[in-house]
């Protein structure tokens, strides 16, 4: 065989094999499980079907300057599938096994709406749940799943306002259910359990729900247990079945949570994890001036001593004129090499956070929405490993000046709340909310300038009719475990706002 023919064959093999390798993702079978629904700006569960080329494949979900990464166990050469959270956004790209794919977005965009909660419904049989809790346009939007599909990662529920779980026979839920529900509720969601679960798994470190309060929805009793800014409702299955109108009962419970116990919807848009369209007016600060350490002064003194003493000694020693300069050069070079051991300033990341909590008790669960502005030398893309225990969810974000950063949702947080100022009827501590925000810049209510920026922004978004909250400056910091990708970066919390949404005293319905 001619060498040229062998080369041609090799090139042909590479060229024909390359497209096959590149098309690893099955674009027809990969889809959002919540179709046709999806909430723009949040994550929805996405089934990714792909042909693996190795025993583990690295899957990346890229959205602007954030990246979600997960290692998936697979079998080389065989079709594998995984469910992962994917942003419902037009610029999202999924990469695996050398292929990349832009997912087809759901057709129906579920914007946050007080009148139309968007929920995930889990039942032993999804067909059974549909007639009990149907999707009604303008009233309730539901996505149906089977109990065995229950997700163990809250990020797969990111877009939902609530979860409804039917478990009439006290089933044992899949592993990770408890933590996922706890994290979802700590981020403000409502979990309605119809029946009960046998929670066999022991989960360390999860705060218990608050004391149950008894409510009634259309004659059906429900226990409401606050969990951070969210809540867990428990309704007896038989009682619900006998009520004759389970839809009204369940929707009533969802609205009870979203309307903060009121009988009419608050004004404005509901609080959700959709990024706020109003830009937060914060700017990155300058890093603190680095200070010389003991090593600097020691080496500087040694250099001056070397430069002064060596020539003096050389005058008194034989052949001093020959060796003094080389010795001085060698000594200075050694000092210069040691100088490189001095620590350099770390890149700086400025953080602001709104901490949503259940009460002033710092032992109770809370969650945080952090706004991060990176300084120089910080990687432009924030990568989060989905397997990391902190379970944070980043989103692209820009401050009011257009500077790119990240918005991070962190479940199950703690903080140090200050005494709250009370927002009710558009007034904070009896002062119009805009006036109070202006006074907060001057220290009113225990706020400092940076917390006051958060307060002003939050009030503009939320100080509507029907909203009551306790607001205070909070002590909070971004833990290294929450964002391992930012471990080598110095994190500076500039301001934090503590928000406790107040409910009306429950009314028997």
């Amino acid at each position, binding site marked *: 065989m001619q060498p040229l023919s062998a080369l041609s064959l090799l090139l042909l093999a590479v060229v024909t094999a390359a497209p096959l390798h590149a098309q690893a993702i099955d674009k027809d079978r990969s889809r959002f499980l919540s179709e046709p629904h999806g909430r723009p700006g949040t994550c929805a569960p996405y089934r990714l079907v792909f042909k693996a080329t190795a025993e583990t494949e690295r899957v990346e979900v890229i959205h602007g300057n954030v990246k979600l990464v997960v290692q998936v166990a697979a079998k080389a050469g065989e079709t594998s599938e995984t469910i992962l959270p994917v942003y419902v956004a037009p610029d999202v790209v999924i990469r695996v096994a050398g292929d990349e794919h832009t997912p087809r977005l759901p057709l129906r965009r579920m914007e946050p709406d007080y009148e139309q909660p968007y929920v995930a419904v889990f039942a032993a049989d999804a067909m059974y749940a549909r007639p009990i809790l149907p999707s009604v346009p303008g009233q309730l939007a539901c996505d149906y799943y089977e109990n065995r599909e229950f997700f163990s990662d809250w990020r797969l529920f990111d877009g939902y306002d609530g979860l409804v779980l039917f478990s009439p026979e006290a089933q044992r839920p899949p592993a990770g259910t408890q933590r996922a529900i706890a994290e979802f509720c700590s981020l403000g969601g409502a979990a309605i359990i119809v029946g009960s679960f046998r929670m066999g798994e022991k989960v360390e470190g999860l705060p218990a729900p608050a004391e149950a309060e008894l409510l009634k929805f259309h004659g059906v009793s429900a226990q409401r247990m606050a969990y951070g800014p969210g809540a867990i409702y428990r309704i007896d299955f038989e009682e619900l079945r006998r009520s004759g109108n389970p839809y009204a009962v369940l929707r009533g419970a969802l609205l009870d949570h979203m309307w903060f116990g009121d009988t009419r919807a608050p004004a404005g848009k509901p609080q959700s994890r959709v990024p706020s369209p109003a830009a937060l007016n914060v700017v990155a600060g300058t890093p603190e001036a*680095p200070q010389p350490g003991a090593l600097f002064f020691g*080496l500087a003194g040694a250099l001056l001593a070397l*430069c002064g003493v060596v020539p003096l000694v050389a005058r008194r020693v034989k052949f001093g*004129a020959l060796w003094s300069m080389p010795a*001085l*050069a060698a000594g*200075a070079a050694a000092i210069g090499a040691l100088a490189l051991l001095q620590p*350099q300033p770390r890149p700086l990341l400025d953080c602001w956070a709104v901490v949503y909590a259940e009460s002033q008790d710092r032992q109770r669960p809370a969650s945080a929405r952090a706004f991060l502005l990176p300084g120089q030398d910080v990687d432009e893309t924030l990568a989060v490993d989905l397997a990391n225990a902190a379970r944070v969810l980043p989103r692209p974000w820009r401050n009011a000046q257009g500077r790119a950063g990240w918005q991070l949702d962190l479940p199950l947080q703690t903080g140090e709340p200050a005494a709250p100022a009370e927002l009710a009827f558009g007034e904070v501590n009896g002062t119009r909310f805009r006036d109070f925000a202006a006074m907060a810049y001057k220290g009113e209510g225990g706020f400092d300038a940076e917390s006051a920026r958060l307060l002003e922004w939050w009030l503009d978004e939320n100080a509507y009719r029907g909203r009551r909250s306790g607001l205070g400056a909070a002590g909070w910091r971004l833990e290294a475990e929450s964002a391992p990708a930012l471990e080598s970066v110095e994190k500076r919390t500039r301001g934090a706002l503590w928000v406790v949404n107040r409910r009306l005293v429950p009314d028997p319905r």
Partner: protein
Amino acid sequence: MTHSPLVVAVFLFAVAGICSLAGIGEPMGVGNDRTLQLATIHAELACCVLLFLPLCARTRGAALRNLLAVTACFAAASACVLLLHFVARGGLPWQSRGGALGAWLFTGGVISLGARLGGAWVMRARVALLCMFALPPLAHYLALEYASASLLHLRPVSPSWALAAGALSWWPLLPMALLPWAAVLALPAPKQAEVAL
């Protein structure tokens, strides 16, 4: 000459210390960051021309001792610059060493050549070096101002200009640095009668 490295070290520490004072550094755009490192390196390039004192003897042995002294001055200056490693991230102090070595060797070679030729030539060499450092950016500015022409191609000729533009590198300084030393060592020793005179 023997105290040139000490003078260089003291001068650079003084410059860094003065520039780090808020009231003095700030108006010049120098803060406690990378700009302080840059200011110190600029001061080092000025040291090359102004502070190196050669041994004024018209022998090859003196030329070799001048070479050793230049090396010692470069090492002392490098130690001062590298001591500012803690001020900012990035490797600017280290990355500038190649270009700084070229500048020291070239300027030291030219001044040593002047010392080899005679005392007055040392001062003339310093003036020529100052012109080499300062005139290219001035010429570029004047050409832009009056003729709308660019003389950016002269940038490698001036180490200070190259540093300001972020283009200080050992090329072409090191090859240029070899020429004056080659001339210093190649010059014939003066005849005895001339030495006596």
